[in-house]
């Protein structure tokens, strides 16, 4: 039983996914699964942020930008017409390797684009390079240099996306094709595939949670936590603090970009608002609301709050809401609301039990 204990939360998460679907179906609101699926993709960004902020202790205000880099890279590559290179030898070779595929554009004309898998790999590679370039100088120093570097970087990405015709400027990119993953699975926003995609996103989150949980409960996780707690002492224990901070940051940026790729194929497009500083701050607020260093708290809170936001509960005060959440958390519950809540429930139950058995106290 105790051996199985680490698996309970994962089983619970899977159960919650199923329960969510059946509840929405029973309520006749299965269309809400779309927003839930999007929230799950956003949750991947926040889970990655949890690793950087909660464990390695570094603040990133650029995760919106990494999400956008992932999304835009795959959106451009899978919608841009490369047919003018058809004659080139390399285009033929890429076509042979199924890296270039023929698609229909919005008006039904045949175009040659990069295949979604290849675009995904390109997005990952781009993120790897960019995140390393941003993180390397900032993470060699102690202190919150990463926050400043990523903030500036995020603003630059936003302006580039907004001002470049290739990226669709203010309109963003539409008509991103479905992504056939293989094994009969397709990332797509078609309503017929709504349930499938909901479980696909849920499974992806679950797998990532398992991987990160393994990481956190290993020498790497302890090293990151040690850097967070006392960087000097961590160095004296033989931990290459700069390298580990950088790797955690790059891994987290990759997760954000990956979420961006899936999200873009799912919603069929991406807009510049995904790259805005508002989004980056939102991710930080969500990580804080889940308690930073708690994978489960972060996943739960981020899915819930994003879902409410996507359902339009916060109206036009959407971004203000997340700013307010951040302020409330920082000033009232720096460890997130879940931990104090849990302790409160525990003590409440304890009191209840004692009241019910007063003779126990007397003894």
């Amino acid at each position, binding site marked *: 039983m105790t051996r199985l204990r680490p698996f309970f939360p994962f089983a619970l998460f899977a159960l919650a996914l199923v329960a969510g679907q059946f509840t929405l179906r029973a309520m006749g609101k299965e269309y809400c699964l779309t927003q839930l699926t999007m929230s799950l993709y956003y949750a991947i960004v926040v889970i990655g942020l949890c690793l950087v902020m909660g464990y390695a202790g570094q603040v990133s205000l650029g995760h919106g930008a990494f999400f956008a880099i992932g999304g835009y890279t795959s959106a451009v590559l899978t919608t841009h017409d490369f047919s003018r290179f058809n004659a080139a030898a390399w285009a033929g070779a890429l076509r042979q390797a199924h890296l270039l595929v023929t698609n229909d554009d919005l008006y039904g004309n045949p175009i040659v684009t990069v295949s979604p898998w290849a675009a995904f790999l390109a997005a990952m590679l781009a993120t790897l390079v960019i995140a390393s370039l941003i993180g390397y100088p900032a993470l060699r120093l102690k202190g919150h240099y990463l926050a400043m570097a990523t903030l500036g970087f995020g603003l630059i990405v936003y302006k580039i996306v907004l001002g470049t015709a290739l990226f669709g400027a203010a309109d963003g990119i539409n008509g991103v094709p479905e992504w056939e993953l293989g094994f009969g699975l397709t990332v797509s926003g078609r309503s017929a595939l709504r349930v499938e995609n909901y479980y696909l996103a849920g499974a992806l989150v679950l797998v990532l949670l398992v991987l990160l949980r393994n990481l956190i409960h290993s020498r790497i996780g302890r090293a990151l936590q040690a850097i*967070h707690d006392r960087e000097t002492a961590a160095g004296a224990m033989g931990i290459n603090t700069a390298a580990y901070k950088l790797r955690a940051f790059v891994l987290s940026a990759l997760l954000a970009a990956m979420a961006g790729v899936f999200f873009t194929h799912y919603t069929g497009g991406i807009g510049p608002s995904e790259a805005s500083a508002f989004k980056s701050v939102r991710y930080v607020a969500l990580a804080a609301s889940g308690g930073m*260093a708690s994978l489960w708290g972060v996943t739960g809170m981020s899915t819930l709050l994003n879902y409410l936001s996507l359902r339009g509960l916060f109206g036009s005060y959407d971004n203000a809401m997340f700013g307010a959440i951040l302020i409330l958390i920082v000033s009232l519950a720096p460890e997130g609301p879940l931990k104090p809540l849990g302790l409160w429930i525990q003590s409440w139950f304890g009191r209840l039990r004692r009241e019910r058995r007063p003779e126990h106290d007397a003894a």
Partner: protein
Amino acid sequence: MTLLEVNDVRRSFGGLVAVNRVSFQVNPGRIKAVIGPNGAGKTTLFNIISGLLKADAGHVTFKDCSITGFKPYQIARAGISRTFQNPSLFFQMNVLENVMVGRHRRSGREFAACCLRLPGQPKEERSIREAALAQLDYVGLAHLAGFPAGGLSFGQRRMVELARALATDPELLLLDEPASGLNTREKENLGALIRRIRDRGVTVLLVEHDMTVVMDLSDDILVLHNGTIIAEGSPATIQSDPNVISTYLGGEFRPAGEVELALLTGRQPDAVTGARVVPTRSGPVGEGAVR
């Protein structure tokens, strides 16, 4: 053969020269103490050896390899481990996890292996845990393994920090004031423990204010004053060194008498009662030294 060789090391902060052309050697299997009044440059010297500070000039050699300019983690990997003046534990972790961090350099699975729990990783994890538990047991705190590090007493924190440093399997252990903040009983335990550590082949270099501990424990002593070495030798030599006595007491040199010995060793021989030391010039008085 020497284990650690410090050669002509110099470090200044602004106009203040904290360590001025210091050279000394540490021989393997010995306990060497660095003493001196506050501000003598002891901790600066330690920080240079462990890589937290860069020396302005001079070099440090460990096992015949230059470690000058190495980063702290590289020095730790070379085989030097250290503790800090204020026990610097990782307070978000429990006691065992703290010591497990010490095994970092003795294990090697990286991100991918840890995420995917590739073959061999769970086994390595178990061996890290066992080695850490063994070190905790060695310092006598195995019963606190699951305890949060933040909830420990000061003396326990020191011991956990020591266990963590030992978990790296160092060849040279640097202890920065290991006895400060400990009560008499804890100091005695610490002395015994450090001797056991030496006997298992770990060389110890320590900075300490408590003269009872230093005189009792050290094989060799190095006295720093204003960043320079004023004496080096066995405890007996140091206790009768005129330079040392005048530096510590700020008094005129007199042959080593009961008073100085008492003040240096921290013991209170009966003859001392009523005796006075009259400072003839206002020299620096090592407050910690005569505690």
